[in-house]
Each structure stands twice: as C-alpha cells, then as structure tokens.
C-alpha cells in the first residue's frame, strides 16, 4: 500500500504549530487571574507569617528580626498551648460531626421532597448566610441567657422549673459553631444528592432492600465523597474560627483562635502568634490531605 503524502505550503505548518501552542497555553491563561489572586492574597502573607514565626521576641517589642525555633519549642512544651490545640480539635470534630449529620438529614429531605418545597428549604438555608457572624452572635445573646428565649421556652413547656442560662458554656459555643457551618455543609451535600438518580433508590427497594439497607448500600457509598468534603470544610472553618467560640463559650474555653488573638493583641508577641498560626495552617493542610486520601479514587461514577 502506498501512502499519499499531502504537500502543504510552509505557512500551513507554521500556523499549525502556532495553533497547537495556543491550545497548550489556553488553560494556563484561563487560570492566571485566579492564580495571581491566590498568590498575592494567600501565598505571600503565609510566607510572611512563616518568616515572622522565626523572629525574636524581646521585651515589649512586637518582634525583633532574627532566627529562632524558640516559639515552636515553647508552643509544644507549654501545656497552655497544647491543651488549647486539643480543646479546639475536640470542639471542631464534635461540631463538624453534628453539622454533617444535621446537614445530611436536611439535604436528603430537600432532595426527596417535591420540587415545590425545594425553593422554600433553600431559602431557609440561605438566611444565615445573609447575616454576619457578629450579628448572629448577638442573636445568640438573646437566646441563651437566663432571661433569654431558650430559658423561657423551656420554662413554659414545663421541662424546667427555674430559669437557666446556657450563655458562656461550651454547649453554647458548640451550637454557635454548628449554626455557622450548617448552611455550607447543606449546600455541598445537596449538590451531591442532586447528581444521584432517584430511581436508584426505587430500584434498590424493588430488588428487596428495606430503607436502611438502601441507605447503606446505595445512598451512603454514592455520597461518601460529599460527606468528606462537607466534614472537612466544617472542620477547617471551626478549627480556625475565633469570634463564635470566644463570644459564646466560657472564659476558660481557650481555643487556638483565642490564643493567637491574645498573643498578637494582648501579649504583643507577634512571632509566637505567627508560630501558632503556622501550626494551625499545617494542621488544616494535613486534615485536607487526609480527607482527600479517604475519598475513593473514582469520585465520579459518570464516566
């Protein structure tokens, strides 16, 4: 067999190469604006913080340029700091778990309900996002104290005989954290559910699986990666947050966010605050890497 070679003009070859180069370059060009923003607003400050964490802290000066591991050593040797890490991780894990459970239930409900209810539920879930975290905290201040809404509600329902205050308790901090992260968790999970063919649940029931079995065999495996994403976003949020646990929790609730603030503004120890922040950043990165690795290799089944 003979292969016919097509004779092309030299300009064709040149234009072809140009077109290929353009195709290779396009994704980078499209990514460029986002990349620049990420580098300028997140990359550089983090690097700056990293450098700051190695500076010296002498007397009342914010920092003295230099290089020392002292702050990191201090951080892991001082039980004040290690306890704070432990407290924060505990609180974050617990509230994230609770957030994901509630969010999952809510998302299943909205997914299964007819479309006419959908907008109402989504509207409800959007409400907390319209209010700033600080305003929400003020709201809780009306809710938790002795003369607050919760106390009156419990009293009038006959569950308690004396007014109670749940303000400045770890429970209040926990509720506050769940409330702040819930909408995000809900929307992440809903988007996952929306990608699932509801007929699959019918098929499962049709083949003899009772509801719980259908959940375990079909729904849960299909939403696993969504659950992990929702959990890790709640965890990342709660582990780094400062305002809600500080404003609602007891004075003894020393979270990482609170201690960083104290080192920075109270003790004027910028290098220490930076070192603590670096630990937080690395911790969050590890948490993300862990959830990533837990996700199945086949995250999408719509190949």
């Amino acid at each position, binding site marked *: 067999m003979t292969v016919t070679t097509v004779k092309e003009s030299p300009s064709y070859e040149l234009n072809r190469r140009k077109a290929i180069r353009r195709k290779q370059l396009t994704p980078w060009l499209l990514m460029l604006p986002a990349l620049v923003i990420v580098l300028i607003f997140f990359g550089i400050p983090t690097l700056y913080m990293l450098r700051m964490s190695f500076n010296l802290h002498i007397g009342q000066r914010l920092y003295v340029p230099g290089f020392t591991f002292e702050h990191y050593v201090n951080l892991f040797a001082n039980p004040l700091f290690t306890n704070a890490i432990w407290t924060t991780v505990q609180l974050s894990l617990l509230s994230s778990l609770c957030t994901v459970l509630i969010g999952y239930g809510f998302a299943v409900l909205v997914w299964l309900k007819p479309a006419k209810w959908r907008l109402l539920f989504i509207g409800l879930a959007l409400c907390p996002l319209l209010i700033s975290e600080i305003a929400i905290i003020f709201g809780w201040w009306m809710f938790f104290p002795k003369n607050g809404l919760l106390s009156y509600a419990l009293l009038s329902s006959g569950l308690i005989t004396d007014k109670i205050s749940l303000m400045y308790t770890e429970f209040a901090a926990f509720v506050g954290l769940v409330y702040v992260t819930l909408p995000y968790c809900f929307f992440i999970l809903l988007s996952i559910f929306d990608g699932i063919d509801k*007929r*699959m649940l*019918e098929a*499962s*029931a*049709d*083949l003899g699986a009772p509801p719980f079995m259908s959940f375990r065999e079909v729904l849960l495996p299909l939403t696993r990666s969504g659950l992990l994403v929702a959990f890790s976003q709640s965890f990342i949020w709660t582990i780094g947050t400062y305002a809600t646990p500080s404003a609602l929790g007891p004075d003894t609730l020393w979270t990482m966010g609170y201690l960083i603030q104290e080192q920075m503004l109270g003790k004027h120890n910028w290098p220490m605050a930076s070192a603590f922040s670096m630990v937080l950043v690395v911790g969050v990165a590890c948490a993300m890497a862990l959830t990533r690795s837990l996700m199945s290799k*086949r995250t999408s*089944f*719509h190949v």
Partner: protein
Amino acid sequence: MKQLAGDAALDLESVRRTFGTVVAVDDISLAVARGEFVTLLGPSGSGKTSTLRLIGGFEELDAGAIRINGERIDHLPPYQRDTATIFQSGALFPHKTVAENVAYGLRMRKFPKSEMEERIRRYLDIVRLKGFEDRYPGQLSGGQKQRVALARSLVVRPAILLFDEPLSALDLSLRLQLRAEIKRLHDELAFSAIYVTHDQSEAMAMSTRVAVMNRGRIEQIDSPERVFHEPANEFVYTFIGESCCLPVRFGSGAATDKLGQPIDLSLEKKPSDGDWRLYIRPSRMKLAGEATAFANRLTAKVQFIEFLGDVYRYHLEAGALEMFSDHPGPTGHNVGDMIDIGWKTGDMQAFR
C-alpha cells in the same frame, strides 16, 4: 370471562390513582396469566407508567386491589413485593460492578453464596454479558447497561417483571436488537411481564396481549393481531398503525367534504346519512390501475410524492380531504395529475 385469581401472576381489580384532580389510573382491571407478556401501550399521560408504579409499590393506590399469585399486596412496601422493575434509565448502581449489581437482589433475599455465584453467571450468560462481571456501569454502552438491568431483575425470578419503557432511551438499531432479545428471553424463560411503552411496534412485536390505554383507561386488551385488525374503537384504530382519516358527510345526494363540495367517492356499502370519519391504512390503498378491481373508489389529485426506499408515498387530496398511500413503484403520475384510489371494504373503518 373472569379469570380465577389463583391462575394469574398479577391481578388488578378496579385500580384507581388520582393526582389532585387528575385521574391518572381510572378503575383499571387487568389479569396477567403466568408466563404472559402484556404490554400497556398508550400516548404519554395515558396512565400506563402510573399503573406500573402502582404495581411496583412506588405509588399509593386510591382504590382497588392488586394481587400477585392470588395474594393481595397493595398494602406492602416495594421491598416486600415480588416484583422487579427494569427502569428506563436502567438505574444501575454506579458504584457497584456488573456482578455486584446483578447480585443485589439475591443478597437481599439472603441467597447462599455458591448458589448466588452460579445464578449470576447463568443470567449474565443469558443476557450475553459474559466477561463483563468486573466492569462498572460507567464503562458500559447504553445497550449493555439495559442488559445488566435486565439480568439484575431476571435473576431474582420475580412473580412479575415490570418494564418501564426500557428501550426508549436507546437508538433505533439497538432498540430493535434488544427488542428481539427480550422476546427470545421470554420464549426461553417464560416469565410473566408487564411492559410499558408508547412504541406500538415494540408492543406488537413482543406481546402476548396488548392493552391500549387512553386517559387512564384501557380501551382494548387483545392479541396484537386483533388490536391491529379489529380495533374496538376509533382511538385504538388511530393509535395503532398508520392511517388516513377522511371526514365525509353523506347526504341524500353525493358524498361531500366538510366544506360541502362534492367528492368523487363511491362505496360498496354506503353508510347512513350524516358525518362520518372513514379510516384506511395507507398500505391498503391501491393506486391507479390496481384500484379498478375494488368496489370502493375515490379520485384524488397528486399533491407531492415522497420516495421512502421500499415504497413511494403519494400524498393526495380530494376537495378538503387529505390522505397518503404507499405504492411499491412509481405509478407514472406526476404532481397535479388525477389518480384513482381503491380499497377493500374490510380495510376501511368508519366511525361517527
């Protein structure tokens, strides 16, 4: 003729389902004998899918009774009914392999492992998917997916199989191929089935009996031949097969169209006076020279001619009447020519 409940794999008795003010299923009674393949055929919104979903247990019954093998099951949830549905989308579990998908129903029925493997192998063989055990649904073509869905439902040997338009999402050649295969499987395994479709050729090709549905009711239930040749009413006639409708007014004098112009129509048996709709299948209308042998005749003008491969389709008009007729070769007539049409009395249906 009332069938004994015990004889029927499935028995619907005055089944009713409404959505708000819409009556989706309007007092349907239907019995499917063991090994029978019954098709629910109808346009969209005729209630055929609702009927199927009632049997599967995905919709609540408003009134009536559903029995499987003589036992009443309409109060049971889907997972306690001995039915298996093949969905239009297949609804395969994407996170499970082909073998795991097929195993699902057996696992729920707590089959011993060895017997399970035996059966899975056998049924994957039956649907010609040997060697695909470890693939994921995402790695299969549309036709292969529906074969897996078929195997997944067949493998549990349900009292009745429910097909919910399983082929309508596939392209034509695949549809024909799978249609033949379902027919072959039915001949081989003699399962009882209800098959929902809006495609009349599917209904004709596969069914023991066809139930033609319209507005939540069964208009006629009969063998495919009888539904085609002896339609119970105008709806069934027009829904099954191609047909031309000739609205004609018979009066004291000649026949006229709806505008009152006389048309050159002669019939063997003239119907009583009044407005009639005459229906003739395009394949049964004979043209030109062939027309002269028939007692029913009409002269019409050629509007345009379509070449369809096997036949030429002549689009004709006579006054306000419009019709088309298939002819195996060109008749030699051109657009604008007058042409004779003839047909047997048995090939015509008249409704008023």
